[in-house]
């Protein structure tokens, strides 16, 4: 396997705020005030903030092999876009080095530098040159580009007369024929309609499987990452936390970034409840793993202390989406409950819930209709998606996503 990108100890430090005031007029005013001994009219109350810096990347190192699709994941602000900007030379690293074999292009560049007054033909050449193609190269591919775009009739018309659809098609045609050895894709999945997403994902798959070209793919869509990437880099606060197979790295990402409480334990003094019942503990037991995915069953275990006995006692469990939507209610059978420790488990089967964030409340009920105490928001957790067929990576709607039988 040959390495096509070698990122070595790359750091990026951004200077926050401006040096001076940002306009000559006010800097001159400050200087004049300094000379004449007056108070600086532009002095900030909080001068410290001006000189602070922000470390967006910290000693990042990784290699990318030829023909591989490398995912880069991480929370907002982790430094993913910064990494790609450095790779495409829009900004430069503060320290470290990157060695590259082959031409890099990004989907950002579609239509960059198109000029409305120029004809389609001129724009193809200009745009091609901006993207780094030589004149000879554009000449060679020109017919193909025009064919692909489907605007041959208007190729000598100024693009300002194009419909926006024609404009985009021509721009996309140039980018598509750039044939970079390395393609960079940042978050395309979060913008554009489903059609466009499909096109982009298709392009990524083509590019990588077709002729051994390499793709760097930044996304928050873990399904797309798991299905498209061969390897994944996990960034956190500008540092590399993990590099590895999509499944393990995505799991590592989930584990680090979910702030749910999957288990709670109370002492007698802080336990929620009243003089009849208190909650001692609650936890989730995931069947087969420690990441709760939609195709995993989970048992919700409770431990209560009953302070008196009840002849006819039952539970009523409510599941809410974190956004407040009531997803379902499930009631236990009634039973005779003795004073003392009381355990209960509610089992949610696999392939019932949709992915998302949820919270659980449980109500203790006497005689089938008299609430004893409602334990609200006992647990919060996330159920992660886990799609194995890998054709569609967009959101799948619905409060639940049951796996039902189909007769076909």
């Amino acid at each position, binding site marked *: 396997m040959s*390495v096509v990108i*070698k990122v*070595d100890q790359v750091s990026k430090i*951004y*200077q926050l705020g*401006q*040096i*001076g005031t*940002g*306009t*000559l*007029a006010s*800097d001159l005013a400050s200087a004049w005030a300094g000379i004449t001994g007056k108070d600086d009219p532009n002095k900030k109350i909080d001068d410290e903030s001006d000189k602070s810096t922000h470390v967006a990347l910290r000693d990042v190192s990784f290699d990318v092999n030829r023909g591989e699709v490398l995912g880069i994941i991480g929370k907002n602000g982790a430094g993913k876009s910064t990494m790609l900007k*450095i*790779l*495409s*030379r*829009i*900004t*430069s*690293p*503060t*320290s*470290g*080095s*990157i*060695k*590259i*074999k*082959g*031409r890099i292009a*990004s989907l*950002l*560049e579609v239509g*960059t*530098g198109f*000029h409305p*007054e*120029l004809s389609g033909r*001129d724009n193809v*050449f*200009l745009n091609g*040159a*901006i*993207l*780094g193609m*030589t*004149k000879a190269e554009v000449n060679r591919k020109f017919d193909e580009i025009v064919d692909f775009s489907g605007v041959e009739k208007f190729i000598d018309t*100024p693009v300002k007369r194009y419909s926006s659809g024609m404009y985009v098609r021509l721009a996309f045609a140039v980018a598509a024929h750039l044939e970079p050895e390395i393609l960079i894709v940042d978050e395309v999945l979060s913008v554009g309609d489903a059609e466009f997403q499909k096109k982009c994902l298709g392009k990524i798959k083509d590019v990588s499987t077709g002729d051994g070209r390499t793709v760097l793919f930044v996304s928050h869509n873990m399904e797309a990452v798991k299905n498209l990437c061969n390897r994944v880099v996990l960034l956190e606060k500008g540092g590399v936390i993990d590099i590895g197979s999509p499944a393990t790295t995505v799991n590592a990402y989930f584990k680090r970034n979910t702030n749910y409480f999957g288990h709670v334990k109370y002492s007698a003094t802080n336990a929620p409840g009243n003089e009849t019942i208190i909650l001692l503990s609650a936890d989730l037991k995931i069947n087969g793993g420690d990441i709760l995915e939609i195709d995993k069953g989970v048992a919700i275990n409770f431990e209560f202390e009953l302070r008196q006995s009840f002849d006819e006692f039952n539970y009523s469990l409510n599941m809410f989406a974190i956004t407040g939507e009531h997803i379902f209610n499930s009631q236990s059978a009634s039973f005779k409950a003795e004073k003392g420790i009381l355990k209960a488990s509610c089992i949610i089967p696999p392939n019932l819930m949709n992915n998302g964030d949820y919270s659980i409340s449980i109500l203790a009920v006497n005689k089938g209709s008299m609430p004893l105490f409602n334990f609200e928001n006992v647990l919060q957790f996330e159920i992660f998606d886990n799609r194995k067929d890998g054709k569609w990576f967009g959101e799948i709607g619905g409060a639940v996503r049951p796996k039902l039988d189909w007769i076909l």
Partner: protein
Amino acid sequence: MSASDKDENWSQIIRPTGGFSAFNIVELWRYRDLIILFVKRDFVSVYKQTVLGPLWHIIQPLFTTAVYVMFGAFVKIEYGGIPPVLFCLSGVVIWNYFSSCLVKTSSTFVGNANIFGKVYFPRLCIPISIVISNLMSFFIQLSLLIPVLVYCKFVKHAGIEPNVYLLAFPVLMVLLAMLGLGFGLIVSSLTVRYRDLVYFINFGIQLAIYTTPVIYPLSMLKGKAVLITSINPVTPFIEIFRYSLLGQGTFSLPAVLYGVIFSVVILIIGMIVFSRFERDFMDTV
């Protein structure tokens, strides 16, 4: 880092930038097609404008020349036998080229933030293409000068004598372009920090014309005024252009040498400053 790193033929190595290296020139050369296409774009966009677009290139110098000539007549400037219109117009044409190079390259960063934020190419391509595009307007203005010259020489029989120094004209233009580009690069670098600088420059350049012999001959000046005017590096270019075209006026070799050295030095400084500030700018887009 092992020795094997050297064996591999990396097509590109990204390191912290800043500072100017010979590599930049090599890279710039690889992007020459792009520069040509930018020039073509500028050309087409001027040409495609309404009639007023190209016409402006003629009206503006004519108008300024008329104002200067009237002013000259009013304060009784002695042009040393040169027809005033020819005297002023020849200066205006040169000065306009220099000032438009300076002013337009000044907004390189501010005007191209959108492209710069999306794709890499040597940023110098933009100011260089501007300097070349400006030749278009220069030649339009020059074509204005020629009929006036012919008229003065053959109809009015003014004692003007285009001479062998005209051969230096291409060199003169290159040096003038270097001068305008050098200043423009420095100003555009400063605009990264001072966004309002472009306005100051627009204003300042209109005042600076009075420190050149566009409107009056150097011979008219005395004392400090001479010094100020000779410090202005555009002065020798105007002098030599006028001399080569009209065979009248003065130019001194030390002054020309000063102009040449100044142009080369300012361009080098400009390129160094530009590549330094380029980096800061990229962090703001």
